[in-house]
């Protein structure tokens, strides 16, 4: 009787959200363009001792169809935005009449490994910088151009293009030294239960990854794949915009993309991805 009822529900749910038997991440392997083998599951970094043993890419929690879009650059809709950013890279802008390319030449050489280490402490400025902050610093202070709006189209596309040149490299964000205070702030945010639903990032992404919450298969909320192309809104999405959506869903007052709070949270969450391959631009639903 009960068994029949369960089966009925599985059928109604279109088999995508079976009851309490879904069971975590799948065992697929990710090879990009039939050549780059990616690390999508690996031992958790030391700072996660006692919290999780293994860090797992969000890719493992998506459907086969969504997964396959990321395996070949011809299928990956995020690559269109990378191409657009490459045009911008070569275009002079601002009072200095300079393009990114004038100082950084070919990003396939000069931007290798950049994404894997960001957010990163910048000694001269005395602050933790995200990739987008660094790009805006070049625009404002070296090109005499205006800053791009945080997580808006151009900024996210450029971040994706820069990140592509780290694809396959392990995330290795530094959390000690002068970045430690920001990291601690981000960690505290990660475990704080916010909003009227009183849920923390950890409630969903540490305690319940692999479980369904309604129709959503919960992942570990890793950011090694950002910027991510989402089928849901058919564009590239920045890390802070994703955080904003998750905070809003706890019925909380969110933070703004580019705010110090989200920079701290990005630093902390990026460090939880340490060891996973950079996947940007990844594809999710």
């Amino acid at each position, binding site marked *: 009787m009960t068994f029949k009822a369960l089966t009925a529900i599985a059928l109604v749910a279109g088999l*995508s959200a079976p009851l309490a038997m879904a069971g975590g991440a799948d065992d697929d392997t990710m090879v990009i363009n039939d050549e780059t083998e990616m690390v999508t599951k690996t031992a958790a970094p030391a700072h996660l001792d006692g919290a999780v043993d293994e860090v797992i890419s969000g890719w493992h929690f998506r459907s086969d169809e969504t997964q396959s879009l990321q395996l070949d650059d011809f299928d990956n809709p995020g690559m269109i935005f990378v191409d657009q950013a490459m045009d911008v890279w070569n275009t002079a802008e601002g009072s200095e009449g300079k393009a990114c390319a004038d100082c950084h030449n070919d990003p396939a050489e000069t931007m290798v490994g950049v994404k894997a280490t960001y957010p990163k402490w910048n000694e001269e400025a005395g602050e933790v910088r995200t990739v987008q902050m660094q790009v805006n610093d070049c625009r404002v202070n070296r090109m005499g151009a205006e800053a791009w709006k945080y997580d808006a189209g151009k900024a996210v596309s450029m971040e994706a293009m820069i990140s592509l040149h780290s694809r396959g490299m392990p995330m290795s964000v530094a959390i000690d030294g002068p970045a430690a205070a920001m990291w601690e702030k981000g960690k505290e945010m990660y475990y704080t239960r916010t909003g009227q639903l009183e849920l923390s990032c950890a409630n969903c992404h540490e305690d319940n990854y692999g479980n369904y919450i309604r129709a959503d298969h919960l992942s570990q909320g890793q950011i090694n794949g950002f910027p991510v192309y989402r089928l849901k809104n058919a564009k590239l999405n920045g890390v802070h915009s994703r955080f904003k959506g998750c905070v809003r869903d*706890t019925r*909380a007052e969110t933070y703004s993309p580019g705010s110090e709070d989200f920079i701290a949270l990005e630093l902390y969450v990026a460090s939880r991805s340490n060891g996973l391959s950079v996947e940007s631009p990844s594809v999710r639903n």
Partner: protein
Amino acid sequence: MRLLTITAAMLVAGMATAETVAPADVQFDEDGAVAVSLTGQPGDAARGRDVFATKSKGNCVSCHAVAQLADVPFHGEVGPELSWTGDNRSAEELRGIVADAKMTFEGSMMPSFYKTKGYIRPGDAYTGKAPKTDELPPLLSAQDIEDVVAFLLTLQES
């Protein structure tokens, strides 16, 4: 003005009467159960089913699977399956769990449905914006809770 507010609150709460217990006045026993009905009105199990399954209401199904709700797609797995809850739990226990599950299960991930304050960074529903008032409207009205409890009691093996 005050009368208007009360009337509005009664409308929101649907069935509220003078006997409605306010969120701050709910008496939990040491196990987290609540003995007294929050409204003095019997719960309506059919309405409770709706509260349970509807995203904009209780949205309980986002975390709990229930075999008897075969027509509702996508049951979650964050909380336990509730298909036999009516056999295992009394109305008093269920009322306490739905009103504020943290009184029964310490630190529970289950939201507190009949609570209006004591939040960190509360927002205005799902807008992401700051709330308009110090105290938030509870996630469910007193009668919603009585209705959900009535529905949960119908969830039995046979």
